[in-house]
C-alpha cells in the first residue's frame, strides 16, 4: 500500500520536474516537427515549398526512385549509399572520440579537486572559436604543405608529406576533433563521482589491471559512456560542415541530402519524409541501445 503511494508520488514528481523542459521542447523543437510530418504527405511546389494536395510520393521516394530516363521504378541505391556512409562515419567517430576521450576524462577526474574545473575549461576553450574557422584551422594543420607535414619532415619521421587532406582519415580527424567535448564532459561527470578506493579494493583482491578496468571501472562509468556515445553518434549522423571542408565535399552525408531537398532540390515532401524516417530509426536504435547498455549493470545491484 505504502509502496504504491510512493510509486505514484515518484511518477508525479518525475513529470512535474520534467515539465519545464518538456514545455520548452514542445514549443521550439518537437511541436514544430508536426509541420514536417504534415508536409511529408503533400505535393512539392514548382519552386520549393509545398502545394496543399495529398500525395505519398515523398514517402515512396525514400526507397524507390522513378528512373528519370526510362521511367521505371527502381530501388533508390543512392539514398542507401548515403545513409550507410553516414552511419559508418558516425560509428567511427564515436569510437575515435571514446578512444581519446576516455583517457582524457580519466586524467581530468584524477587531478586534485580544485584543478578539475580548469582542465574541463581547457577542453572547451577551443570550441569558443567558430566551427567554420576551426575546421579551416584543422585543414591548415593537415594539408600537404601544412604544419603537421612540415614538422614531421623537419624531425625526419617521414620523407614525403602525408596526403591526409580530402580523405576519409581527414574527415575522421575533423569529426573526432569537433565532437570530442561531447564525449569527454559526460564521461568526466560519471568518472568524477567514482570512489577511487574501489580500485584499491580491486587490487587488494589481486585483480589484474584489465580485470579492474572491466569489472570495476567500466560498469560504474557506463552512464557516462552511454551519454557520450549518444551525444557524439547522433549529431554526427547529420554533420556536414566538417565532411565538406576536410573531405572535399565530394560525397553527401545524410544531412546534406536532406538539406538538398529543402533548398536547391525543391522537394520538401521528400526531405520531410526522409527526416521523419531518420527520426524513427534513430529513436528506435537509441531505445534498444540504452536498454541493452543498462541491462544488469546496476552498480548497487
Amino acid at each position, binding site marked *: 500500500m505504502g509502496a504504491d503511494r510512493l510509486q505514484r508520488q515518484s511518477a508525479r514528481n518525475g513529470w512535474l520536474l520534467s515539465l519545464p523542459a518538456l514545455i520548452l521542447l514542445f514549443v521550439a523543437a518537437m511541436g514544430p516537427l508536426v509541420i514536417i510530418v504534415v508536409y511529408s504527405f503533400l505535393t512539392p511546389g514548382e519552386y520549393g515549398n509545398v502545394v496543399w494536395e495529398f500525395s505519398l510520393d515523398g514517402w515512396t521516394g525514400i526507397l524507390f526512385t522513378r528512373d528519370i*530516363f526510362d521511367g521505371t521504378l527502381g530501388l533508390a541505391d543512392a539514398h542507401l549509399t548515403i545513409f550507410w556512409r553516414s552511419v559508418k562515419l558516425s560509428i567511427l567517430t564515436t569510437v575515435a572520440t571514446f578512444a581519446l576521450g576516455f583517457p582524457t576524462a580519466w586524467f581530468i577526474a584524477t587531478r586534485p579537486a580544485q584543478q578539475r574545473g580548469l582542465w574541463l575549461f581547457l577542453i572547451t576553450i577551443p570550441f569558443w572559436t567558430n566551427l567554420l574557422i576551426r575546421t579551416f584551422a584543422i585543414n591548415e594543420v593537415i594539408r600537404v*604543405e601544412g604544419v603537421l607535414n612540415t614538422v614531421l619532415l623537419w624531425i625526419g619521421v617521414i620523407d614525403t608529406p602525408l596526403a591526409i587532406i580530402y580523405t576519409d582519415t581527414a574527415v575522421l580527424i575533423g569529426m573526432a576533433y569537433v565532437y570530442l567535448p561531447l564525449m569527454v564532459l559526460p564521461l568526466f561527470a560519471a568518472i568524477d563521482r567514482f570512489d577511487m578506493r574501489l580500485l584499491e579494493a580491486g587490487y587488494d583482491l589481486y585483480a589484474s589491471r584489465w580485470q579492474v578496468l572491466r569489472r570495476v571501472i567500466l560498469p560504474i562509468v557506463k552512464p557516462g559512456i552511454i551519454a557520450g556515445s549518444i551525444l557524439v553518434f547522433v549529431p554526427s549522423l547529420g554533420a556536414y560542415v566538417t565532411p565538406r571542408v576536410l573531405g572535399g565535399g565530394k560525397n553527401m552525408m545524410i544531412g546534406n541530402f536532406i538539406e*538538398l531537398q529543402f*533548398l536547391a532540390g525543391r522537394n520538401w515532401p521528400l526531405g520531410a519524409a526522409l527526416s521523419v524516417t531518420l527520426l524513427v530509426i534513430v529513436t528506435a536504435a537509441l531505445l534498444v541501445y540504452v536498454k541493452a547498455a543498462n541491462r544488469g549493470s546496476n552498480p548497487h545491484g
Partner: protein
Amino acid sequence: MKRLISATALLLATSAIAQAEGQLNLYNWGNYTSPELLEKFKAETGITVTVTDYDSNDTALAKVEAGGHGFDLVVPSANYVPIWVEKGLIVPLDLSKLPNHANIAPEWKDVTWDPGRAHTIPWQWGSTGVAVDTAIYPGDINTSAVFLEVPDELKGKINVVPEMNDIVAMATMYAGGEPCSEDPEVLKKARDLLVAAKPNWISMDYGATERLSNGDWAASVNWNGSTMRARLANNTVAYGYPKEGYPLFMDSVALLADAQNVEEAYKFLDFIMVPENAAMISAFARYANGIAGSEAFMPEDMKTAPEVVIPEEFKAAGVFLPTCTGKAQEYITAIWTELQK
C-alpha cells in the same frame, strides 16, 4: 548578470527601432555589401542600413515566404527573380521615384528575367568559368573539358564548386544541350560525363581564392571575381571562358511586398544607380555592376582585368541560366544525387 540583461534589452530593442524612421533593412548575400557604400549613404541621407546575410537563393526565398522577416530589400539572382515575382514577394518599382533609372546600361535595361527592369535594380554580375594555374597546365583553358575530361596534368588537382545548377548546366551545354533541358538523351550524356570525371577531382568545395593562391589546387571551376583575387596573389592563374557555354549570373536588388521602410528603400535604390556609388559596390566584391559610366570610378586593376571584362570572342558563349521548370529541376537534382552519392 546585470550586464547581460542590459545587453539583451539593447539587442531586443534594436529590432524594434528597425522600423523607425531613418532605417533600412537589406537582406543580401554575405560579404557582398561595401561598408563604405553604406557609410556614404548614411552621410547623404541619414538613413542607417542594417545588412543581414544569406548564403543561398533558396534560403532567402523560403525565409521571406515564411513571413515576419523584417527585411525591406533583397538581392536575388537572375533565374530566381521570376519566382519572386510570381509568388508576389517583390513588387513593381515606381520609376518616378528613381530618377537615376536612366543610368542602367542599355544591355542590362531589358533583360529576359525582368523585362524593362520593372522590378529590379542591377547590383553585380559575373560568370562561372574555369580558373587554371597555367604553370601546371599550359593547354587550352577556354573549355569545360578542363573539368569534364580532365587533362593528365590536372588529374587529382582540380576542384569543382558545389553549385548544383551551374555545374549541371555546364555539363549539359558541353553535351550539346541547353541549360534546364528536359531532353533525356542530353541529360544522360551530361550525367555520364560528370560521373566519369568525378574521380579526377580533388574536391567539391568553396574557397578557391585561397587554395589557388597557395597552390593546394591547380585548377577550379570558379567565379570570375574570386579568380581575379587569386590571380593577384598568384600571377600564373588564368580564367577560362568555356566555349561550349558558361553561366552568367546577375544579382539584382528588389523591393519586398511587405517592406516597412519603402521611402528609405527607394532612396537606396536610386543611390546605388549613381555611377560613383555603383563602382564602390564593384570595388568591394570585385564583380562588375550594370551601371553605365561606373567604369571611370573603378579601381585601376579592374578596368582591364580579363576576368571582369569578357573578351569579345567569348561573349557569345555566356548564358544567363533560365528559371528551370519543376520537371527540369527534378532531373538536375537526380543527376546531382547520382554524382554525390
